[in-house]
């Protein structure tokens, strides 16, 4: 991390196939009644395809997993700004990626500023944004 510089690419994080069962559990944990996360008939009825749709916080979590594996823990992610661009369906395979754009120092801590994203493999982008990660003193 000492030699980190703008343009450095973070090790990719791949995930999938995305599990419909984990979406069900997450709906219960979030008390989220939206049936698009657990009822294929509801998804079809809304014209959104034939597979249930992942929760936004789980998509965000995959980007955090990318950063956590790279930096040594999720607590090192100090700031995360993500824009929702598309949906993830059960069975999708995803790729979280990131690139360092700046390295700075604040209050004696070294921070890496990164561009990050999440894409469906062979498909569209799902999330795009920036992260600030604590990388040492």
């Amino acid at each position, binding site marked *: 991390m000492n030699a980190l510089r703008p343009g450095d690419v973070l090790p990719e994080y791949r995930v999938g196939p995305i599990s419909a069962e*984990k979406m069900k559990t997450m709906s219960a944990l979030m008390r989220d009644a939206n049936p698009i996360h657990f009822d294929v008939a509801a998804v079809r009825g809304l014209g959104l395809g034939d597979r249930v749709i992942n929760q936004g916080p*789980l998509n965000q979590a*995959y980007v955090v997993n990318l950063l956590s594996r790279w930096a040594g*823990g999720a607590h090192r*992610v100090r*700031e*995360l700004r*993500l824009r929702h661009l598309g949906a993830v369906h059960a069975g999708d395979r995803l790729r979280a990626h990131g690139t360092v754009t700046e390295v700075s120092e604040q209050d004696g801590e070294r921070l890496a500023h990164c561009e990050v994203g999440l894409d469906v493999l062979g498909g569209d982008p799902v999330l795009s944004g920036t992260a600030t990660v604590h990388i040492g003193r």
Partner: protein
Amino acid sequence: MTTAVPDEAGLAELVGTEFPGGEFTFEQWWVRLVNDCALADPADEAGSPVFVFLAATSAMGVSWEQLWSWFGARESDGPMAGEIHTVQHRSLRVGGTYAVRGRIESARRKRGARTGVFDLVGYRLDLHETSGELAATCTSSIIFPRRSR
């Protein structure tokens, strides 16, 4: 709160509306299961920024349907998440209890070439330690499609 779709002046009046708020405690079992669903390292405990959003929206003091109703919308109208911006001033702790407070920060009617008319609403929720110190902030936006407008 009204259930009619507000006009642009009505939208502006909703800016500053405060959430009733509440408290959220990170119970060990709940954190463990969320991390399992997120395929996260269990050692991350409640350190992920994702927990800020989950705790903040769980204890904002209104249900999602109630929040939609402030803007004259229902779940079936298809409100969508726009952007989410999370800042962690200190790591959230398993077993920790946090007070949630927040308000509507912005509300504007917009017109998109592809999407047509929609309202873009921004809301901020803060998590405070029991000492009162600010632990984390989550600022999010919601897109309300207004196809009939």
